[in-house]
Structure formats: C-alpha cells, structure tokens
C-alpha cells in the first residue's frame, strides 16, 4: 500500500483516462455514435420511382453480408461507378456456417455470399428470394454450367460470382517426382509436412475421390472408414490450415510440402518465387463456386438486383482475378486473361480441365451434421 502512493496513482490514472477520452472524442463522433441509418432494414425502396430515376441519382442503402475483404471497393467497382449515391454497408462472416447462422439468426442483410455445398439450405428454409434474371444485363456473359449452380427446381436463386479449383499443391524442390493423386495427402512419406484444410466435408470429398465413393450418398460404414482414415492422417500434418493466409506462410517457409489448396495460394506462391506445382490428380480436381443471393423479405429487392448485376461486371471481375486469383463467373473476363501466372493457375490453356473436374454438390442438412461431427471427432482424437 505504501509503495503505491495512492494519491499520485489516482492522479496518474485519472490523467490517463482523461487523455484517452480526449483522443477518442477528437477522433470524430461518427465512429462512436451508433449508426442511425437503418442498414437496409426498415426503409422500403420505392420500386416504381426507382425505374424512373437515372442511376447516378438513385439513392438508398444496401446491407451485404460477405466474407472479410470483399468490402474493398475493387470488388463492387461497377456498382460504385454506376450508382455512386447508394450507400453500401458490409457485415462480415468468417465461414459458410457463420453466414448461414447469421441469416438464420435474423440478420438484416439484403445480400449474402455462400458457396457451393451450402446453397440448398437457404432454398429449403425459404431464406433466399428468387432472382429475376431478365433484369440482369450481364447475365449473358455467364456460362450455362455456372448458371446451373444457382438453380433449384428450375428457378434461379443465386448468381455465381467467383470460382476456383481445389487440388494438391506441392513444393517441387521438396517432393521428388510428380504428384498425380489425392492420396498424396495421406502419404506417410511426407510425415510432418502435410497441411490439410480444416473442414469435414472437404475430408469426405477427398476420401470419396480416392476410394470411389458416391459423394452424394456416403453410407454410415463408409463414413466410419473415412473417419479412421483421417484420424490416422492427422499426425502427418504439420498443422491444418483455416484460411489461405495460414497456408501461404506454411508452404513458403518449407514447413509444409504437400497441401490441399485452392489456386489462390498457388498463384500467390508462384508470385513470391516459391517452386510449387498444382497437381492434376487422376481422380480429377475439385471445383467450387461462390454465389450471391438476395434475402427473402428484403425491402430493397430492386436495388439488390442491380447490385448483383453490377457484381457480374467486368471491372469487378478483373479485380477478383488480379487481386485475389479467383476465377470470375463472367466468361469475357476469363477469356481476356493474359498474365502467364494466372493462365497457369487457372489452367486456361488446358481445354479439357473442366471435364475432368468434380464440382462440389450441395449437402443435405443430415450430411452436413454427420460430416462435421465426424471431423470434430477426428480432431478430438489426437
């Protein structure tokens, strides 16, 4: 007590607190005052008047539930250019499960961005509105196979936006020979230098490719085998990765030699000069597609539709390809890629690649629960 000199401590601490309050207050009230503008929740956009107002005069607000990073203006550049007066606010989700949970939990987002495998749930639960594709000016640039990704019962519920491959990524200087099969991820030769994505459905997919199971109808016996297989595989990993920003340093530092990876990591590492190769497994690569949907009951349907349309625009598509190394659903954007690294990453010069690619099917709720519980057990068994 004596060494504290209570009074001077009090003075010092009051001083600290006062200074902090001043710093915060001077920083501008806007950020500490809760946003009073409803995030697209309560003001209905007058749909009749909207069509008569020219785009650059149109006002309103939209709320988008997206993955972190996509709030950067590069990724909605076309919309920003055409409708400069519309206020777009972003909420963030860190995974498909998180986004699904937030929409279920009552998020007031008008637009959200799930990926293949998770699309069915929104349709089944009536959480997504049907899209009137006749109003989309960029719809023609999207290849039919991609359009089909967002179609359920003949109706269009999602528009595809970004896509990519999943395959085995490996260090050519650490791995002897060429890798041409998914079983490399379970190969004890690379003990301590493998990195698998921390995701149950992905593990089931890989095992299905290797053993020839039907991904849409995995039986209980097969699931038990898959679980054991990955329990045995777990010690071979240096670590699982959750986001590409985890994987890239692992491979760059040489801690990981062989990994389950999307082509974004491949392109990033190539750009850093790391000697890596992206496999063409005999079982076929996997492909996934990201899609945007409009929340059922959104009061800004018309505005949201315009946002989706502009998302398919070329400026946005080019940003996606060049900044993030993901594919764009806009066929014209893909056809105009000239960068050698990107052409390599997307295997653009290989016309048969899409034929040999397995697209991720949609999960049922039971599969989702069973496969994620299986993976949780794999992790807990270590």
């Amino acid at each position: 007590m004596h060494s504290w000199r209570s009074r001077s401590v009090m003075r010092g601490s009051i001083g600290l607190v006062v200074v902090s309050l001043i710093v915060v207050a001077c920083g501008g009230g806007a950020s500490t005052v809760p946003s009073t503008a409803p995030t697209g929740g309560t003001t209905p956009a007058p749909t009749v008047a909207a069509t008569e107002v020219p785009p650059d005069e149109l006002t309103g607000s939209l709320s988008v539930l997206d993955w972190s990073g996509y709030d950067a203006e590069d990724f909605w550049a076309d919309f920003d250019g055409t409708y400069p007066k519309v206020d777009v606010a972003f909420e963030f989700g860190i995974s498909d499960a998180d986004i699904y949970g937030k929409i279920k939990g009552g998020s007031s987002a008008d637009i959200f961005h799930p990926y293949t495998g998770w699309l069915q749930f929104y349709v089944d639960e009536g959480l997504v509105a049907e899209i009137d594709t006749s109003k989309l000016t960029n719809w023609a640039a999207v290849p039919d196979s991609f359009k089909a990704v967002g179609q359920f019962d003949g109706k269009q519920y999602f528009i595809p936006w970004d896509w990519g491959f999943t395959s085995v990524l490996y260090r050519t200087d650490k791995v002897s020979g060429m890798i041409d099969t998914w079983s490399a991820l379970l190969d004890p030769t690379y003990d301590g230098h493998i990195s698998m994505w921390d995701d149950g459905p992905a593990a089931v997919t890989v095992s299905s490719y290797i053993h020839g199971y039907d991904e849409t109808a995995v039986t209980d016996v097969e699931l038990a085998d898959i679980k054991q297989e990955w329990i045995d595989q777990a010690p071979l990993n240096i670590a699982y990765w959750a986001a590409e920003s985890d994987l890239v340093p692992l491979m760059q530092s040489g801690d990981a030699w062989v990994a389950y990876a999307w082509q974004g990591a491949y392109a990033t590492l190539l750009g850093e000069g790391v000697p890596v190769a992206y496999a063409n497994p005999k079982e076929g690569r996997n492909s996934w597609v990201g899609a945007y949907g409009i929340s059922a009951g959104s009061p800004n349907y018309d505005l949201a539709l315009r946002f989706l349309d502009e998302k398919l625009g070329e400026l946005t598509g080019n940003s996606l390809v060049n900044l993030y190394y993901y594919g764009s659903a806009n066929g014209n954007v893909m056809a105009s890629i000239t960068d050698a690294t990107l052409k390599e990453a997307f295997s653009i010069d290989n016309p048969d690649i899409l034929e040999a690619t397995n697209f991720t099917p949609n999960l049922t709720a039971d599969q989702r629960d069973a496969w994620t519980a299986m993976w949780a057990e794999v992790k807990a068994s270590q």
Partner: protein
Amino acid sequence: MDGDVGRGQGLSVILARRAGAPQGARPADPRRRTFWALALPPALGLTLFLVAPLLFMAALSFRTDLSGTLLAPFAPTLKHYAQLAATTPFLRSLGLSALTALGVAATATALAYPLAYYLAFRAGRRAAFYLVLLLVPFWTSYLLRVMAWKLMLGGEGVVNSLLMSAGIVEEPIAALLYNRAAVIVTLVYVWIPFAALPILAALGRVDVRLHEAAADLYATPFQQFRRVTLPLSLPGVIAAFLMVFIPTVGEYVTPLLVGGTSGTMYGNIIQDFFTRAANWPYGSALAMVMLVGTLGLVAVGLRLVNPRRLLER
C-alpha cells in the same frame, strides 16, 4: 481490539448492533439504500446480457436442429447430450482441457507471484508504471504477435537457424511449435502478467511494518514470507488461479494458432460446431457441459479452501 471482526461477523452486523438492534435477531443493515444503489446496475446488466443469453443457449441445446424460426417453441430432445455422452473423444478432450487448464493456472500463478511481489515491495513508486508496461504488449494484436513468434520458432526460423549454424543440432527442432507443449507454454507466457494483478492487489494489504516486526523477531526472510506475506496474499492467489483456470478450459485461439493437430482443445470443438458446422444445438450442449463441469470444479475447490473464512476475516 474489536473482537467482532475476528469472529467472522461482517460489517453489516457490527453496524446494526451499534444501531441498537436486539441480540440474536437478524440485524437490519442501516446501509439499505446504498446496497440497492450498488446492487441494481450490475444485477440488471448481468440478467439482461448474461443470464438471458445463457438461458437461450441452454434452451437451444435441447432443440433438434436449426430448422424453422429460432425463437419459436419446439419439442425438446436430449439427443445432443446423449450423443455427447457416447462420443468418447469429446469427453476425453474435455478432461484433457481441464487438466491443461489446471496446469497452466498453477504454473502461471506461481510464476506471477514473484512478479507481483516485486511490484508490491521493490518497485516503489514506479509500480503503477511498471504494471502498465507489462500490459501494454497485449494491446498489439495477438494474431500478429503469434505470427512473430512462429517466425522465430518455425522449422526455418531464427531459433533453429541459430542452433543449426552453431552446430548444436543437425536438423531443425520441430517440437518448438504445433503441438500441445507449445500451447501450454504460450498460454502460461500470456497469462503471467494478468495473474499478477489480483496477487498484487492482495499484497497491497500487507503492511511493511509487519515485515519489520518479523525481522525484529529474528525471522528469516523465508519464514517471514511463509507466515506473514503468503497467508495475507492468499485471496489474491486464489483469485488469480480462478482467473486463469476458468477461461483456459474453453480456450481455442492459442490451440488454433500454435497447437497443430495434436493440440486441439475442447474450446476448438465448441467453436467448430458454431462456425464450421452451423450445428448450434450440439455446440450449445457441449458448452453447457463445460460450463456446468467447470463451475462444479470451482465450487468443489472453493469449498476445500474455505473462502468464507477468508471473505469475512
């Protein structure tokens, strides 16, 4: 010397007795209004923002799945608890996590004590400054700090490069990172400054003149510590232990960053059921079990240490 305090009777009793309340009857505390002024804000806040959410999650754990409107009534089921009871890896993980938390709490508290002692008796007037100095690193993003650590400890990191160039090892040591030991070491390292705080607060009660008196009576420094300082600081030690133990059972960030595949803790499993599986009911069931289990452990522990005696001294 006022004998009332020593007999374990609180301030309220003393005051009431002095106000003339009859002996034996439950005395009325004359500080009634202050009591309610102090009690209402925390009680209200906790009820609205802690109890209500917890009740919601408890209810959710009895829900079959997430389909349908979330706040609508539903037919309860025990299936998630049954599934948890039948899944040995999860139970084992809970046990391991609790043990890990015990180890981390004990180590962190022990290592924090000398720190608190230094700040209380040696740092003099600079104590507050040193204290803030200790905590300021925690205002830097944990993610970035761990990235920097990984840079140092990784296979081709600084530590291994130094060891290899000095010829001490031939191959990089993989055991520095991505395992359970790395999780424990990191957790202890992170908790020491925080564990020091309650101990420091309690040590503030120790009158330096007691040390002088002990020295006068020819006590060795160790005896003085054991018989004067340590007992008086015990509430702080217990507070520190609890402060570290309880959250560490459900810790998930550190295992995720440095645990690799073998360092997974129970908190990761709960986290995964929410953010990877969208299986909130099962996740809630797992969380409820951890909550009840940890609180139970704490209740048993506190009964053993008899805090009533400490609180009313």
